[in-house]
């Protein structure tokens, strides 16, 4: 009799565990989604087009030590004009941007920052990051993310938040996340409570089989979604962003959680941007991406031009970024001046 009871309990336990699902915390969604309504679609593509033009005239970064190949056209990386453009854009919006120069081995990274000061927890920062260096015109990689960040910065400037927000345009990501890695290693990231990093968020396709799987991780066949990648530390963030995007119809999302801290072999594809070192440092961080070369065949090619992007997709993703930033920073109801 006793054995049968234990047996039954085991079965009930297994069934309950099998059926359990962890649901996201949806508090604050409504206000965050309201902020996203301020995003203006027409503001986005002009940033990308301007960046593409500037890059044409820019002097490429010295690629000594970075051997060139098809996937890594190292002699075509530019960043100087983007540094100036991003800094000036922040100034125009009323920010007081600053540049942190981090030099090592004759290679200097110029990271551009701008901040909104929080009202209740000003020493806790939500970092919104994207890299400003690019191969060729770099429309998707990474003009799309820079444009989204600038538009989010414009919108969020009109509101107040409990936590501070730091917008970061990292340099030399293409040479191995140099700018962000040095930034974290130099101790500047100690006040970051959460980070949203974007890398390529402007390319989509409605065609079947336009989306490849990522290192054996099965993804939907149609490449029409924004992929949000996290790890154990940022699991809650990914859940909230996915739910927020769904409930308020911001953008079509697939949320992915890499195994453990995301640094294992299969997780390596989830780490390919400026959030990588944040994961190593156990700082909650997510990556927003269109999955790069697993979808966009123009990846690191001269064909990565503004014409190849989907402006509506970029608009939706910018709304998703704005809402998520507002949510994590703790949007306060009353608008700032």
């Amino acid at each position: 009799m006793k054995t049968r009871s234990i047996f039954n309990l085991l079965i009930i336990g297994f069934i309950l565990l099998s059926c359990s699902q962890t649901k996201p915390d949806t508090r604050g969604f409504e206000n965050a989604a309201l902020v996203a309504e301020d995003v203006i679609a027409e503001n986005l593509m002009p940033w990308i087009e301007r960046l593409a033009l500037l890059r044409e005239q820019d002097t490429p970064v010295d690629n000594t030590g970075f051997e060139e190949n098809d996937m890594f056209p190292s002699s075509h990386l530019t960043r100087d004009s983007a540094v100036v453009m991003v800094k000036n854009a922040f100034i125009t919006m009323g920010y007081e941007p600053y540049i942190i120069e981090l030099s090592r081995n004759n290679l200097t990274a110029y990271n551009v920052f701008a901040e909104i000061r929080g009202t209740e927890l000003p020493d806790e920062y939500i970092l919104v990051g994207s890299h400003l260096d690019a191969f060729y015109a770099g429309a998707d990689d990474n003009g799309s993310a820079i444009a989204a960040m600038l538009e989010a910065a414009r919108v969020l400037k009109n509101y107040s938040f409990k936590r501070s927000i730091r917008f970061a345009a990292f340099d030399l990501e293409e040479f191995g996340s140099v700018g962000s890695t040095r930034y974290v290693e130099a101790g500047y990231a100690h006040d970051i409570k959460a980070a949203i990093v974007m890398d390529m968020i402007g390319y989509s396709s409605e065609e079947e089989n336009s989306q490849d799987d990522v290192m054996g991780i099965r993804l939907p066949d149609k490449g029409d979604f924004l992929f949000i990648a996290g790890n154990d530390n940022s699991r809650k963030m990914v859940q909230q962003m996915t739910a927020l995007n769904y409930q308020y119809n911001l953008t079509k999302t697939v949320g992915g959680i890499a195994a453990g801290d995301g640094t294992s072999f299969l997780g390596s594809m989830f780490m390919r941007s400026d959030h990588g070192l944040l994961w190593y440092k156990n700082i909650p961080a997510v990556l927003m991406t269109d999955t790069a070369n697993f979808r966009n065949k123009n990846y690191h090619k001269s064909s990565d031009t503004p014409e190849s992007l989907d402006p509506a997709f970029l608009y939706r993703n910018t709304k998703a970024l704005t809402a998520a930033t507002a949510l994590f920073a703790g949007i306060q109801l009353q608008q700032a001046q």
Partner: protein
Amino acid sequence: MIRYLIIMMLLPLKLLSVNVDSFYPYVKQNFLFYQSDRVTAGGAGGGIGVRMNYNQNLFSETDICILWGNGNSIPVTCAIGFQANGVWCPAVSLSSSVLLGQRTELLDQEGNLPSPFIYTINLKLQPFRFKHENKNVSFCDFALGMGPYKGNLLSLTMLSMEF
């Protein structure tokens, strides 16, 4: 589906009440990969287990492995099988695995995580299995399985050895 898998899993325990002729612990190397629409798990590593013979042909085995490559994955497998007699003693078994530990997860649209436990039902073949002094050694075992979220399981054991 889940009920059947649970019963499969617990069957070897039930069979313990039957007379057991022999009881052999073993070690194994294992590569296992589970791929589904929501969960990807597995890796390469090794584990330990125990085999129980009920008569000359019927056996059950239970093992636990730890695998690396996609975090730390811990599959627990229970199987019942049929083995041939003789020095060359190939075997076929029906097994069920519970995939514990870390894995890559895809959320649903509403942000819900997949089920924390993944059960699979598998068919395992051990074509190169040999008996020496009543202990078995087996090479190149492979298993194919299926599980939730349209999942497929592939398992390859290069060597398992009783001691």
